[in-house]
Each structure stands twice: as structure tokens, then as C-alpha cells.
């Protein structure tokens, strides 16, 4: 395996973590959006807020990681992708800013109208961002981003059958993962009705996303035959099988209320799809451009990998501590200043944790 392939694998691990963790945070926003009016949706929104609060910024950094590793290790690919997919990526960027800022603002405001306003921005951009990121991914997967600066079609590169399905799949996946993670969070917080609420939604979205994945395969068959062939009969087939089997097992586990185990299988189902794409397209990054051809010089790859490895030594225990703490119940100090207007929510500060 060459250094470039190793770097690509590291990039793909980062992407996978972003989809599994950051994606679920967007999914939380999707559920926030359709939770109903202020009264009816209050408990749902609170659970979403508690789950996202401590971890979303750390989860978000995976995206920056992917972007930075891409431009460092495969600069021409980054330049081609960013310049051709300028429109969806700008919209995704605006969605990112809207989501993050509005979430932070809603957290600290007290008036209903403020919370509704910021909540609406948070929830709406939680749908918009994964859609456009997915659409951009679809453009790359279907070979619509050629090498060169702004060489691809500025519109059809992301507004085409594969992109639309990929965008919907991204939103669906985000919502599905969030529902699965939140079910467990609610259960741990002894909010049985909320757990039941998200279990139902996890089941429904699981079926919908599974259906979308099938549609996606059909679209690929019509739109990008070579990737379809790789996925269904080639190297990527084992990964597709992992994804399908994990998806089905997840549904069974949800029915049987094995909420911790389903986190693992749901994540596997999504990761299988992502790696199936990666393996299916390898070694081509863009049409006619292989990993080797597009990669940065060896010294750069070695230096970045070394830096990332060193960083991982710091990051892994820190992340573990964060997730560990965010999954612990709070012990509320009954000292000086309690939060205004009501009892503190003891024992229910769950977080979207990694599928452990």
C-alpha cells in the first residue's frame, strides 16, 4: 500500500466519523424541525439539545479534518471539487454557520419567540447542510467533477439523479442515526415515552433510508454504471452486504429494544455504504485521475500523517473523556444559583456518543 492510499484511508475514516457523529447531530436538527409546536415538541427538543450540546463542536471538527487533509494530500482534487461544486458547497457552508450559530443562540435565550426563531434556523439548516453535502458527494461519485478548475458543469454537477438521491440519503441517514442514538439517550435518562417516540421514528426512517439506498442503486445503474458494477459484483460487494445485513439487523434490534446494540449496527450500515462507495471508486478519485496521480509529494504525505498520528495520541483519550462525561448523569449542586424557572433536569444529560 502506498503512502497516498494510506492517506486516502485516513481521510475516509475522518469522513466516516463525520457522517456517523456530525451527521447524527444534523439528524437531531431534523427531528427538532418536525417535533411539533412549542408545547408538544418541548421534551423532544430538550433531548436533542442535551445530546448535541457538549459534543457537536467536536463532531463538527471532523469536517474540517476532511477538508484540510483533502487539500493537503490531494490538492488538485480539492481545487477541482471546490471550484466545480461551488454552489452546493457554498450553500452547505451557509447551512453550517446557520446551524451552529442558531443552536448556540437558542441555548442561551429565554424568550419563546427568540427560541422559536433560532430553533427554526437551527432545524432548517440541519436539513439543508446534509442535503447539499450529499449532493456534492453524488456529483463526485457519478464522475461529474472533472480535473481542473471549474471544469465541470456548475449546475448539473450537483443537480442530477445521483446527487439528488445522495442528498436525500444524507438527510435520511442523519435522521436515522440521530433517532437511533437518541432512543438510547432517552432510555438512559429514564424518559421511556421519548425512547418509544424515537424508536418508532428510527424504525420508520430505517425502512425509508433502506428504500432510498435501493433507489440509489437503481439510479447508479442508470447514471454511473461502473460504480454500480463494483458495488454489486465487484470489490465493494462485501461492504454492500455488510451494510444491508447491518441495516436489517438494526431493524430487528429496534423491534426488540436493544438500544445500545443497534447503535453499532446502524453505524455499520451507514459506514458500509460509505466504504462501499470508496472501495468501488478506488483508485479513481476524479474521472481519469488516480490516487497516485493526484497525491501530494511524499514528504508532505509523511509529514501530515506523522502530525495526525501524533495528534491522535492526544485526541483519542480526550475524545473518550468527553463522550464518557457527556454520557454521565449530572449531579446538580444545590448551592447558590439554580437555573431560573423550574427544577434542573437531573440525571438526563445524554450525548450523541460514538457507537461503542
Amino acid at each position, binding site marked *: 500500500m502506498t503512502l497516498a492510499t494510506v492517506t486516502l484511508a485516513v481521510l475516509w475514516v475522518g469522513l466516516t466519523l463525520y457522517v456517523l457523529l456530525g451527521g447524527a447531530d444534523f439528524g437531531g436538527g431534523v427531528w427538532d424541525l418536525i417535533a411539533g409546536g412549542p408545547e408538544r415538541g418541548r421534551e423532544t427538543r430538550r433531548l436533542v439539545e442535551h445530546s448535541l450540546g457538549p459534543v457537536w463542536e467536536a463532531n463538527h471538527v471532523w469536517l474540517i479534518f476532511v477538508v484540510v487533509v483533502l487539500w493537503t494530500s490531494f490538492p488538485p482534487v480539492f481545487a477541482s471539487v471546490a*471550484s466545480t461544486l461551488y454552489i452546493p458547497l457554498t450553500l452547505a457552508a451557509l447551512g453550517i454557520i446557520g446551524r451552529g450559530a442558531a443552536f448556540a443562540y437558542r441555548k442561551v435565550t429565554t424568550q419563546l419567540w427568540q427560541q422559536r426563531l433560532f430553533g427554526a434556523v437551527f432545524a432548517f439548516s440541519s436539513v439543508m447542510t446534509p442535503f447539499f453535502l450529499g449532493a456534492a458527494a453524488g456529483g463526485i461519485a457519478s464522475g461529474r467533477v472533472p480535473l481542473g478548475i471549474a471544469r465541470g458543469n456548475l449546475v448539473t454537477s450537483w443537480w442530477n439523479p445521483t446527487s439528488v438521491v445522495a442528498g436525500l440519503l444524507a438527510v435520511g441517514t442523519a435522521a436515522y442515526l440521530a433517532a437511533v442514538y437518541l432512543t438510547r439517550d432517552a432510555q438512559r435518562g429514564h424518559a421511556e415515552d421519548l425512547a418509544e417516540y424515537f424508536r418508532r421514528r428510527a424504525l420508520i426512517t430505517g425502512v425509508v433510508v433502506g428504500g432510498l439506498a435501493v433507489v440509489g442503486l437503481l439510479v447508479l445503474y442508470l447514471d454511473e454504471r461502473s460504480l454500480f458494477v463494483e458495488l454489486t459484483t465487484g470489490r465493494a460487494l462485501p461492504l454492500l452486504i455488510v451494510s444491508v445485513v447491518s441495516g436489517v439487523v438494526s431493524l430487528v434490534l429496534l423491534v426488540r429494544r436493544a438500544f445500545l446494540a443497534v447503535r453499532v449496527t446502524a453505524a455499520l450500515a451507514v459506514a458500509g455504504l460509505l466504504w462501499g462507495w470508496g472501495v468501488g471508486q478506488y483508485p479513481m478519485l476524479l474521472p481519469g485521475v488516480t490516487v497516485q496521480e493526484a497525491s501530494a509529494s511524499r514528504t508532505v504525505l509523511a509529514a*501530515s500523517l506523522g502530525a495526525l498520528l501524533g495528534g491522535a495520541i492526544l485526541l483519542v483519550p480526550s475524545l473518550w473523556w468527553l463522550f464518557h462525561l457527556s454520557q454521565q448523569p449530572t449531579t446538580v449542586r444545590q448551592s447558590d444559583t439554580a437555573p*431560573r424557572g423550574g427544577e434542573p433536569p437531573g440525571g438526563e444529560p445524554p450525548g450523541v456518543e460514538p457507537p461503542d
Partner: protein
Amino acid sequence: MHPLAVAATPADLLAARLQMGLSLGWHIVLACFGVGMPAMTLIAEWRGLRTGDPAYQLLARRWARAMGVLFAVGAVSGTILSFEMGLLWPGLMGRYGQVIGLPFALEAIAFFIEAIFLGIYLYAWDRLSPRQHLLAGIPIVIAGIASAFFVVAANAWMNQPTGFDERHHRIISVAPWRAMFNPATPPQTVHMILAAFMVTGFGLASVYAVAMLRGRRDRYHRLGFALPFTIAAVITPIQIVVGDWAARFVAEHQPIKLAAMEGVYVTQSGVPLHVGGIVVNGHMRYALEIPYALSLLAHGNPFATVIGLNTVPPTDRPPVNVVHLSFQVMVGIGFALLALALWWAIVWWRRRRAPASPWFYRASALAGVGAVIALESGWVTTEVGRQPWVVYGILRTADAVNPAPGLVVGFFIVASVYVVLTIATVYVLRLLARERPVPVAPQEYDADESGAS
């Protein structure tokens, strides 16, 4: 890589530059608070722990809450920038992405550490012992400063591109560490990190200066003013020395930028310093001239030769008035802040108390805005001063821009989002400043559990 087949229109180039300038100029303020605020909050928390003084504890909580909001917005506004590097400047990233990749990869790690420990610091206030909690804050401080170092190192490379070999627009070898530690890195990073602490210190202090002018002179407000102000006041004279170092560096390595900063057209020796003034038709007008001062300041010799703008063709010159004016503004504010810091120091030294004059607090109330303006002007000086190059002497900004049509539309959309974002951020920060009482664990609960949604 293919050379550019199509070029961007001048309007699109301008739009791309404005968009980058807007998002960077916006982010840089938040980034400064991201670098400076954790340290100040930790000092307040530590003093609170040591002395049991409730005023310090309250300050720590309140600052932590504001820090949470500022960090969140800073995180996303920083992400936009990483997107825009490619969306707007693919010609830069496609060619040199790998050369400046290392500091960005390290920055991503540092930012990760920052985000993780900020999550722990804000949300686990009650789940950790006070000592553990204080220690959990230290990585935020270190990682924040490290982030600033790495990002500014990448920017320094654009001023002093080193550490690579290229032939026919193709990179053939890269020395990533040498690129990161390019000659401009030391002065630029130190100058920026100190600026971050000045912006945070004067910025926080100005909030309490306003409160004190309105008659709230209790211990909480006095400390809220004194702690950040003292830190900023101590840094200010150091910053002026570092600024001088940075300017000498520019004089040595980017003489055309210095010429623009000072409005020098003709290369000569014994050059005067222009204070104020505006360039009309290639001549500096209405400026106060201090004889020999520029030669002395830039090269340490009153008769030293200063290279003028006329040594390069007009297409290779930055817009002189913008650079000259912004540089003057930065230096002017820097010295005004120094005067304010001296006022504080002298009163302390002679009377062992804070100044009592309302004029001191009026000036301090303006110091926060002043520090931000100085920051922005300094950044305009270095960025606009590098023009028309994006990579000094190697790649023109016009050749780096995305040639896709419609950048103008994109700019207007992005600009409106930033207008809304600015209004919302200021509004929310004002709400936080007035909030009473401050919750125990800054982000542990919804602001109002009884409020719906």
C-alpha cells in the same frame, strides 16, 4: 494542473476578495476571543477558587457562558473559511495546498483539542471537582494559542513563500516544515497572538467600563474591569515592540508592502515618516513629515535607503491609500491604548488604586472597539499590502480566483448572512451580559426550563 482557460471577470474577482475579506475579518474577531478568553476565564476561576471570592466565581461563570457562544460561532465561521479557500481560491489551493497543508493539519488537531475540552469545561462544570475543572480548561488555552500560531504560519507563508521547488507551475518537491517555519512566521504569529489578548482584554474590560460609568462600581464590576484590562495593559507595550519587529521584517523582506504602508514612491535615503496624509496622483499630500524617521525606524539608520513603489510597475503595486491608512490607524490606536495603559499603571503605582476619573472609564469603554479596529486595520495592512499577489511574488490573486461565473451573487448572499449573523451575535451577547443570576454550570441547562421550545 491546467493553466486557467477562462479568467474571472474583474467584478467576480472583487466579489471573491470582498467575500474572503468579510468572512476573514469577521472570524478574526471571534478567533481572538477564542484565543484570549479561556485564559482570562481560567484566571478568574482560579482566583475564585483560591480566595473564595464570589465576585471572581461569578465572573468566571459569566465569561464561560459568553465563551461558549463565541466559540460556537467562531467554529462555524472558521469552517466557512476552510471551504472558501477552495470555493474562491482553487488556483491557490490546487497548486500550493500541499505546501501549506501541514500547519492546517496541525491547526485541525489543535482546534479539535479546543472543541473537546471546551465541551468538557462548559458541560461538566458540576461533574468534576473544582480542581479537575480548572485543569480541564488549560488545554483550551494552549490549543487556542497553538491554533492561532498554525493559521498565521500559513498566512506568513503567503508573505514569504519558502519550502518548495516548482518547475512550469508544477510542484516538484516540498519541505513542509520549512514552509511552516518560513521567515515571516515568528514576527507575524507573535504579533497576532498578542493582538488576540489585547482584543480580548480591552474588549472585556470595556463592557465593565460601561457598567461602571453607569454607576455599578461594586467589587464584581471592578474586578471584571481590572482583570482583563491589566492583562491587556501589560501586553500593549510588548506589542508595540513586536510590531516594530514585524515592520522591520516587512521593510527587509517585502519592501513594496512597506513602501505602500508609508506611501513612499521614490527610492531614496534618509526618508521621512509620513503621519496621516493621502496619496493623490502618486504623491503623498497633507502628511505630517518627520525627517529621517522612516529610514531610522525601518532600517535602524537615519540615512538608510528605503525602496519606493516606483521600483515595480504599477500592476505590481498594492492600493497605497488603503494600506497607508489602515497601517496609520493600527499604529495610532496602538499608541492610544499604550497611553491608557500608562494612565492605569501610573495611578496604580502612585496611589495603589484604580483611576477614579470618569474620563479614564470613558476612554476604556472605547478601548474595546478601538482594539478591534486596530486588529482589522492591521490585518488589512498585511493582506492588502501583499496585493496583487496571493503568494508574494509568485501567484497573483487574479490567477488564483475561481473563474466560475456568479461569484458576485454568492458574495451578496454571504454578505447578507453575515449581516444577520452580526446582529444576532451582538443581540445575544447583550442578553448574556444582562443575565441574572448566572447558572451554576454555564451550559448545563436550558436558559429557561419553563420556556417552551
